[in-house]
């Protein structure tokens, strides 16, 4: 019981760590400048690596209370960004004024995998894992 909850939290941490490493790789190694919305998603994703790691040793089911607000916040920004790149939200409604326009798609793998899509997938999975830890603990 405890072990499986730990595994779920570990999986959430691993997702956050891979996303952070990926964002740093795209930004620092490949030289893609992050747009404003990407920065907001980074602000939600990077601390998850540390918050979740702190909740793993010793395992604390309360970690959900601290990590879920971050992952929900990141998920909301990610969904907004995704809708923007997909063209459902007009550009003038965005906070981007200078530099890289958020609506511009810089990376597209396999014809549909974009950076905001990866971000939404990662935040969704982390939210799902955290919610299921909470459900187990309150049962």
């Amino acid at each position, binding site marked *: 019981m405890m072990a499986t909850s730990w595994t779920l939290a*570990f999986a959430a941490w*691993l997702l956050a760590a891979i996303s952070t490493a990926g964002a740093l*790789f795209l930004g620092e*190694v*490949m030289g893609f400048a992050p747009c404003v919305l990407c920065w907001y998603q980074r602000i939600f994703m990077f601390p998850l690596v540390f918050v979740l790691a702190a909740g793993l040793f010793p395992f604390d089911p309360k970690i959900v209370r601290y990590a879920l607000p971050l992952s929900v916040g990141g998920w909301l920004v990610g969904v907004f960004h995704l809708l923007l790149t997909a063209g459902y939200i007009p550009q003038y409604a965005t906070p981007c004024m200078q530099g890289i326009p958020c609506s511009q798609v810089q990376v597209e793998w396999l014809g549909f995998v974009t950076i905001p899509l990866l971000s939404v997938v990662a935040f969704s999975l982390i939210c799902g894992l955290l919610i299921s830890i909470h459900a187990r603990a309150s049962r």
Partner: protein
Amino acid sequence: MKQKSIFIGALVLLILVFTAGAILFNQQRVEKADKAASQNREILVRLQSPTLGNADAPVHIVEFLDPACGTCREFYPLVKELMAANPGKIRLSVRHAPFHRGSDQVVKTLEAARKQGKYWQTLEALFASQPRWVENHTARPDLAWNQLGGLGLDMGRLRDDMNSPDIARLVEQDLADAKALNVTMTPEYFVNGKPLPSFGFEQLKSLVDDALASAKGS
């Protein structure tokens, strides 16, 4: 404890993959830049590029710069020092890569000043006053214009030349060449056709030292 070793194992693995990926990516980038530079040797230096120093110098630095770029401003005197430390051995050619918004107008001013034989003075004056005409990474050609007093330029002629089609062509040519050579950031240097392995003055200096040493050997 098993959980701890899983956690540490994953962390180490992640860091290793990241580092290996970074090294691999950088190697590929350098190879690509090397190849682009050697395939495009003839577009690296155009006859019309402003050039400083001994025409027979064994070491030729080609610099892509943006007058509105802060790092270009910082590196410019360093390159001049490098040339002064090796008198007659280094030639510098400048290509323009106006990546900042509004900067293409400033480059046109520079090209127009070159027609009056005052390219280098104008470039130095613009670098010196850069904080006064670059705001939030955007060049303000109107403010840049105000920094050109005291250089003895014929301002009426300067304004006419700036808008001439041959100067517009020069700017377009430089930008097209920058694209072909994979120049995406400024300043970018090529020493005898070789791009910097990674950005930094030390890297530039060691590339120049290598070129000087191999010139002495031959």
